[in-house]
């Protein structure tokens, strides 16, 4: 499942995963996951139904689902957990699915691409695919909430001391940098004007203090909070941070020797020039 809002992320996935030996299959009939916040707030049973329909399609094909987005994995994993746990919800969802000759059974597994890489492929496969190690590039990782929590459903990592993204970035040759607000929520799911901005600004200040060259993440919704978010903050609060926000598969693409345009970095509002220069220099050395 791909995040639709940011085609550059899909591009980065399509360019980098084949280098790790992954064959991508585009599935007919999928809808959006659906989103784990707004449609769920409207009607949870309908939200479960749409998610279950997607899972039923994967089940029919005997495929597991790989998502590139923290929101998609959150929705699909929670839907699976809920339907497997709550027979009433499952009966209602399957009553609806029966009308289109589909059934949710619960046989397909769901994972984010970073989990597939860590657990199935192994980080050595990442290291072997690197042509231009990102030596000297420091990355402040933003985990984002939905890939980690609740850990009893997500089964991805320790929600308080995660390492999966740090290890992924390190395998590319870059240096993950800790900062105080590494695990703070980006605030996007909060339906308020001010609160999300205060939260993102707290994170920017923390990253600025860490001195990292860029921010690295795997969630498109967080990306929007931080890339567009920096423009909003400089407009509303008069403070400019200029921290490039890079989707980790774009970073992987750069390390695999792709040009910035080939992973769509030119589409970002905060330009990554400083990081790109650093990569060029370390390639020369």
């Amino acid at each position, binding site marked *: 499942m791909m995040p639709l809002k940011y085609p550059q992320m899909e*591009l980065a996935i399509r360019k980098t995963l084949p280098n790790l030996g992954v064959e991508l299959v*585009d599935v007919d009939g999928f809808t959006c996951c659906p989103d784990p916040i707004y449609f769920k707030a409207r009607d949870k049973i309908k939200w479960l139904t749409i998610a279950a329909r997607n899972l039923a399609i994967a089940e029919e094909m005997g495929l597991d689902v790989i998502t590139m987005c923290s929101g998609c994995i959150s929705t699909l994993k929670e839907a699976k957990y*809920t339907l497997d746990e709550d027979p009433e919800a499952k009966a209602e969802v399957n009553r609806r699915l029966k*009308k289109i000759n589909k059934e949710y059974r619960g046989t397909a597994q769901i994972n984010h691409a970073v989990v597939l890489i860590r657990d199935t492929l192994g980080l050595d496969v990442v290291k072997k695919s690197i042509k231009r190690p990102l030596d000297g590039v420091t990355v402040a990782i933003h985990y984002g909430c939905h890939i980690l929590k*609740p*850990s009893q459903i997500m089964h991805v990592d320790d929600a308080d001391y995660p390492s999966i993204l740090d290890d992924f970035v390190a395998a590319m040759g870059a240096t993950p940098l800790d900062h105080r607000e590494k695990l703070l929520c980006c605030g996007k799911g909060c*339906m*308020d004007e001010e609160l999300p901005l205060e939260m993102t600004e707290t994170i920017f200040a923390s990253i600025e203090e860490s001195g990292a060259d860029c921010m690295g993440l795997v969630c498109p919704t967080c990306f929007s909070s931080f890339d567009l978010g920096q423009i909003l903050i400089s407009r509303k609060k008069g403070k400019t941070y200029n921290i490039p926000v890079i989707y980790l598969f774009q970073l992987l693409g750069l390390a695999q020797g792709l040009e910035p345009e080939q992973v769509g970095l030119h589409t970002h509002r905060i330009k990554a020039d400083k990081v790109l220069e650093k990569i060029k220099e370390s390639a020369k050395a």
Partner: protein
Amino acid sequence: MAKEKIKVDFRFREKLNKIQGGKHHNYCYQCSACVAVCPAARFTEEFNPRVILLKTLLGMEEALTGEDSPIWLCTNCYSCYERCPQDVRPIEVIIALKNMAVQRQKAPASLAKLSENIAQTGVSVTVTSAVSRRRQELGLPPLKTIPIDELKEILEDPQSVTKDDK
């Protein structure tokens, strides 16, 4: 000093019990572990998950699912779910409360906008011409057609979010 009687609206709680995720509100013993990890509570006093659960236990329907309810300030981060020792899953209770607010047509107008696309088109975000152009420019394959008829069948009744929503 005369003690004020505490009234509990059990009918509201029974209604909440029937909504997926709502039943777990019964397990809350008000320990505040959720507050300690809640980012919304960190940034505003208007939002406090323990207080929301207390009001839920008391059955305060209007305070929770009326137009001025604080539930919409939840950031949906799942930290409370992670931390709660009672398996209350506060965020899921809050989502059940949101579902009730929608049924009462008391949800914020912005929710209608943010949630209508998926039922209409099968995708959560609007596929703008800018997105389509960018896909072309980046050499990405065109988007697959989504069987909207199937979606309409399984969603059955269209539901409005606010009074003004169609």
